[in-house]
């Protein structure tokens, strides 16, 4: 009582308005104190919000558990954190102000508003308050959008609405972040300063609640915006934004650049010198559009997008234990299935439906499915006939047969692959940069919990009696075959082997004798007799060979039968009658959910017992209003062509990662849906835009732009495309060295289903950042696009690259032998590498280089070396 009186007295002395937040009451623990912990970074994951806290003091990450935090503040450490008789000497304040050593340094100044707030709260007895009443219902930032000049400043104002209906200005308790510091910065107090031309998202966070605003900094100076003809609505939107920012768009790129760009982006290949020449000579006004149409129908286009989808779908992560799945068998099958669908250009929603709702049996009888499994094993042979067989399946059951495709982890992957969401943080705690809570993930995961977990378990035979019957039959059949094989080898086979061996000797002997007699013009009848004997010996030999081959075939079949049975029993993708509750366990504890709810939806759904819950997910995804499904793919396709998404990174669709061109994204999505999820419509629309066909050279004053497409942004070629381009440019190929796994002799790097044995190829792929395609990483960024000195060393000095340049059957060797003068050879080598003709100056320089060299052959090799080491070769531009 006394303490309360004292507190009230002190409050009167201090007066209201610490932070301008509260009015006359004591600071609220929920609204002010935990908010302040968040702002000061105390409860961040690398400080006291870490799993074990820091230096013995733990707070829940981002204040997710206010009651627990309060308890620890009040009672742990012998209650010394808060000192009610002498608030000043509370450890909390002494540490936070740095008056006693603090690992996190001084977080606030003594005497500051923030300091006074904490002091007043402790003085008031550090009361906790009602959690429900202080729940934030809305966070309002104003202004939501601000146009400003570099150097100008303004202050953001934030107010929070609470569940009890009250509203409060919480600006001083918020964290501020600018998503593009080259455009605008924001300080602790929420004061924004314009820095450079562009627009930047501002993220404001109050407690765990984020909100977004936008700052626009147009370029200074008057310039007449050119009157440009839009190709389509893409250009309308892009040009409108550029005009607003006073950024001039680049010119259209020249034909050679366009041809190279569109080849590399659409089919992943360089154009041939003849293709470049023909395109340059073509006088038709619609040649670009026609080229786009042609390329979209080439098999290379499906190959390139198969690569992209297989990255996304983690198409090489097979085989847990004794489930008869393997990367060698199944990665090429999954790839073949994806490629077949892309070749058919089936609507994207149907493509996803056939993946998401896949089952192994697809409603067929067990017998039919058994036949399929057997045929797949049979087809794992030269030519891989199983690939076509698998590609004819309606659904991609392999998606659910991969490692880690089930349960909560599998759900995160669905969210990442099809919805463009990164929700792995929500496994353990509230997502720090988004709205996702653990419940959101778990409730969504419940819709996938009925998908059976693939992998060996001795319970499977009991669980799936229908499969178990076949499993037993097949194993018995395999045993019979094995016994048969054994018998053949030991019984009749053994004798036949012996006969065959003798016959072979006999054949050799007789053949030699006959040859000798014929040469010596020996007795005709003797020769004829020997010929008869030879025929008999050969017959015996053939019989023995046939018998052995048959035995080997039966042996192989027996082994395959065991594998097929295992696959049937341990790996069939099927739906269970009932799923377990979705559950996560992390270092922060366990959590479980019984609710079925779609991501971002407020209300739970009920799933009829006779329906596949995944159907609800699919139905929700393909509804035109779905906030993620169409946007995720549209944004990813955009990112493929421009190196960045309209929302970037492209797999982080979030209200707190604002789009640079929201209207454009919406129009693209609407058009995509209207056109029945036609991927080619999407590609075509983007490719035909002026925006895509712009030069990579910026117009005057626009060079600083990075996000508004004032010019075509350059990016490094992806690993596979680069190696294919290197092969084409040098006129060489790489044998993947995978005959053992029945890969074809010729295969482009883009078509490679997993890391091949060829050491050079795998070195290039690793060095240039091909993703691992396993479930461990859920991020588009797994494809590493960065640069390093390895890249330079590889292209400029790897012995294999030099071998390619010097290959006696390669491009430079062929060119040197060809007719034509030096200048024409230089032209050819330019066309074959950087897909354009040299300028006069470049041509002269190269001709001079060649003629002054002792050896024109090596000089041409050197020119080729130079060209594959230019930026024009390495970059998409």
């Amino acid at each position, binding site marked *: 009582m006394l303490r309360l009186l004292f507190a009230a007295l002190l409050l009167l002395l201090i007066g209201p308005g610490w932070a301008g937040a509260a009015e006359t009451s004591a600071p609220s623990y929920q609204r002010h104190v935990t908010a302040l912990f968040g702002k000061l970074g105390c409860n961040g994951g690398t400080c006291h919000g870490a799993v074990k806290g820091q230096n013995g003091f733990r707070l829940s990450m981002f204040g997710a558990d206010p009651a627990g935090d309060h308890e620890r503040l009040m009672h742990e450490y012998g209650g010394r954190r808060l000192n009610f008789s002498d608030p000043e000497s509370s450890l909390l304040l002494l540490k936070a102000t740095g008056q006693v050593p603090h690992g996190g340094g001084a977080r606030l100044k003594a005497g500051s508003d923030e300091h006074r707030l904490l002091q007043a709260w402790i003085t008031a007895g550090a009361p906790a308050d009602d959690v429900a009443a202080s729940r934030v219902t809305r966070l309002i930032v104003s202004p939501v959008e601000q146009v400003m000049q570099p150097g100008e400043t303004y202050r953001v104002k934030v107010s929070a609405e609470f569940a009890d209906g009250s509203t409060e200005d919480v600006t001083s308790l918020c964290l501020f972040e600018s998503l593009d510091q080259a455009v605008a910065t924001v300080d602790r107090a929420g004061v924004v300063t314009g820095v450079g031309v562009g627009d930047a998202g501002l993220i404001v966070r109050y407690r765990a609640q984020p909100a977004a605003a936008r700052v626009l900094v147009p370029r200074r100076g008057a310039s007449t915006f050119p009157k440009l003809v839009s190709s389509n609505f893409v250009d309308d939107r892009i040009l409108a934004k550029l005009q607003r920012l006073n950024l001039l768009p680049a010119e259209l790129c020249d034909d050679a650049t366009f041809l190279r760009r569109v080849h590399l982006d659409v089919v992943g290949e360089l154009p041939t010198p003849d293709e470049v020449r023909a395109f340059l000579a073509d006088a038709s006004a619609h040649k670009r559009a026609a080229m786009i149409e042609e390329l979209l129908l080439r098999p290379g286009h499906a190959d390139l997008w198969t690569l992209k989808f297989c990255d996304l779908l983690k198409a090489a992560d097979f085989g847990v234990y004794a489930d008869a799945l393997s990367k060698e068998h199944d990665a090429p099958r999954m790839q073949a299935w994806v490629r077949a669908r892309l070749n058919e250009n089936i609507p994207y929603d149907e493509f996803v439906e056939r993946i998401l709702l896949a089952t192994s049996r697809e409603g067929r009888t067990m017998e039919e499915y058994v036949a399929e499994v057997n045929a797949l094993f049979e087809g794992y042979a030269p030519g891989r006939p199983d690939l076509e067989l698998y590609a004819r399946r309606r659904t991609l059951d392999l998606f659910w047969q991969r490692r880690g495709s089930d349960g909560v982890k599998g759900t995160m992957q669905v969210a990442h692959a099809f919805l463009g969401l990164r929700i792995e943080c929500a496994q353990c705690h509230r997502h720090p940069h988004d709205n996702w809570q653990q419940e959101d993930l778990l409730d969504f995961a419940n819709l996938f919990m009925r998908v059976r977990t693939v992998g060996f378990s001795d319970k499977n035979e009991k669980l799936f009696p229908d499969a178990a019957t076949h499993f037993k039959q097949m194993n018995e059949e395999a045993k019979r075959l094995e016994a048969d094989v054994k018998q053949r080898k030991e019984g009749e086979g053994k004798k036949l082997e012996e006969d065959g061996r003798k016959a072979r000797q006999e054949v050799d002997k007789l053949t030699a004798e006959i040859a000798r007699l014929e040469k010596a013009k020996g007795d005709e009848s003797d020769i004829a007799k020997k010929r008869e004997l030879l025929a008999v010996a050969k017959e015996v030999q053939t019989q023995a060979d046939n018998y052995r081959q048959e035995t080997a075939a039966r042996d192989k079949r027996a082994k395959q039968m065991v594998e097929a049975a295992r696959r049937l029993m341990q790996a069939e993708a099927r739906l269970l009658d009932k799923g377990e509750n979705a559950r996560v366990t992390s270092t922060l504890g366990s959590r479980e959910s019984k609710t079925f709810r779609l991501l971002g939806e407020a209300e739970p759904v009920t799933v009829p017992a006779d329906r596949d819950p995944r159907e609800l997910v699919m139905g929700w995804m393909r509804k035109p209003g779905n906030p993620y499904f169409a946007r995720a793919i549209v944004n990813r396709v955009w990112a493929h062509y421009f190196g960045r998404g309209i929302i970037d990174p492209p797999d982080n669709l979030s209200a707190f990662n604002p789009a640079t061109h929201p209207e454009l994204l919406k129009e693209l999505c609407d058009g995509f849906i209207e056109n029945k999820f036609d991927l080619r419509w999407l590609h075509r629309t983007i490719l035909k835009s002026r925006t895509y066909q712009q030069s990579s050279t910026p117009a005057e004053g626009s060079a600083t732009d990075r996000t508004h497409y004032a010019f075509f942004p350059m990016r490094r070629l992806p690993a596979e495309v680069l190696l294919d381009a290197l092969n084409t440019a040098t006129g060489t190929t790489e044998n993947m060295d995978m005959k053992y796994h029945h890969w074809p002799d010729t295969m482009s790097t883009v078509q490679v289903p997993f890391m091949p044995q060829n050491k050079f190829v795998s070195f290039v792929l690793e060095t240039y950042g091909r993703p691992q395609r*396993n479930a461990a990483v859920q991020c588009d960024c797994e494809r590493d696009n960065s640069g390093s000195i390895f890249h*330079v060393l590889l292209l400029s*000095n790897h012995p294999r690259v030099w071998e390619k340049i010097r290959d006696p059957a390669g491009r430079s060797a062929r060119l040197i032998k060809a007719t034509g003068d030096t200048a024409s050879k230089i032209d050819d080598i330019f066309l074959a590498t950087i897909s354009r003709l040299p300028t006069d100056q*470049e041509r002269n320089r*190269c001709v001079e280089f060649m003629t002054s060299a002792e050896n024109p052959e090596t000089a041409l090799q050197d020119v080729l070396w130079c060209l594959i080491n230019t930026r*024009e070769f390495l970059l998409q*531009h």
Partner: protein
Amino acid sequence: MKRRDFLRIGGLGLCGVGALDLIRAQSLSASNNAKAKQMIVCWLGGGPPHLDMFDMKPESSEDYRGIFRPIDTTVPGLQVGELLPELAKRADKYTVIRSVTTMNKPGDHAQAPLYWLTGNPRLTTGSDEYPMYGSVVNKLRPGPNDLPTFVVLDEIDVHTHNALSRNFLGSAHAPFVMQPLKDKDAVTKMLTPQLELPAFARNTDLLKTLDTRLRRNDTQDEVIAGLDQYQQTAFNLLRSPKLRQALDISKEPTESIERFTRNKPAKARYPIGDPLHFLLARRLIEAGVPVVHFNLGYWDWHGENFTAGKQQIPMFDAGLAALLDDLDERGLLDSTIVLALGEMGRKPKIDKPKETGAGRDHWDYAQFVLAAGGGFNRGCIVGATDKHGEQVVDKFYKIESFGRTLYHLLGIDADTLVHTPANRPVKLIVEDAPIIKEAIL
């Protein structure tokens, strides 16, 4: 007091670190003046037998202590196995740590190397791909611009091979993995010009005149902006004779080479690695390469532990002793950390002790680390195991402590935040742990 008891109080007495020092250490934050500028890791992949090398238990029964006898060293109180006479003579140059172990969390050959060599519990799959120490040095404190910063000779580890070169800092920070002792090694060739230098110069001149088109907006994009710098560094490296000369051991006097190779067995039970990697490591350190790592053969001796020991331990003894001598003579030891360790120890209880195939199985609960130079104590023992050498009983430290100690000596703050691909901030060593104060100067 018996010698064993004396040893058991361990590091404290021997290294003169009292309670006061330890308390002081706790309030120390990472220092900026790095003691270690360079580092060599001799990795004994598979797990060397601590009971036959640096944690002798002569008073154990025969089925534990094995056939190798302890010998005295220049450091009173420290005995080593009889197959290590050279290192025994040089015990005043290094520290033996007997109390850092993975405790099998995670352990085994698939994961323990990942843990030891990154300082974080990295898993084969399903965890973040934490970087090796050398990758971090490459990112935060790269060496001279005409040399690679992080070189791996042969391979990183005998079981996991080079899986550790992938790391979330990006492929730019992966080690240069090369096998310079093999004639046909493509990476070694890639690091030495494939053309005579004048021809290389002519080509780069021509390249300069042809590569002019896309240079206009260089500064705007990180990837593009980096190209020039990477090309510059790569070409510098090719033009510079430093690396080439370091790798060319034909310049090394025969008697010098002999010191490294003299105990190399003609025939061996297991792959033994190559003792010339000690020499190459020294030459690379002399040239200025900041971090050199090599795997020295196969130490996973489930069978024929004692046969393999007689073959491999003397080779290791001669090689490491020569390396320590050379570095010390050249004044490089004080600024170069030299480590010799594997991912585990071997089981004290011998498998089939009476038979010729007698072996020691996996043991993830005790092992040794030999650490010299770069701020590690000279002539010091840290920690102790129980009477059989099975469990740590004194000065237990986790791998995180070991990693933090290395970063401390290298002058890198182990709490530095780096970002995973999904943009989650993590510290270089995620878990907080005390540094091994007893082991360092």
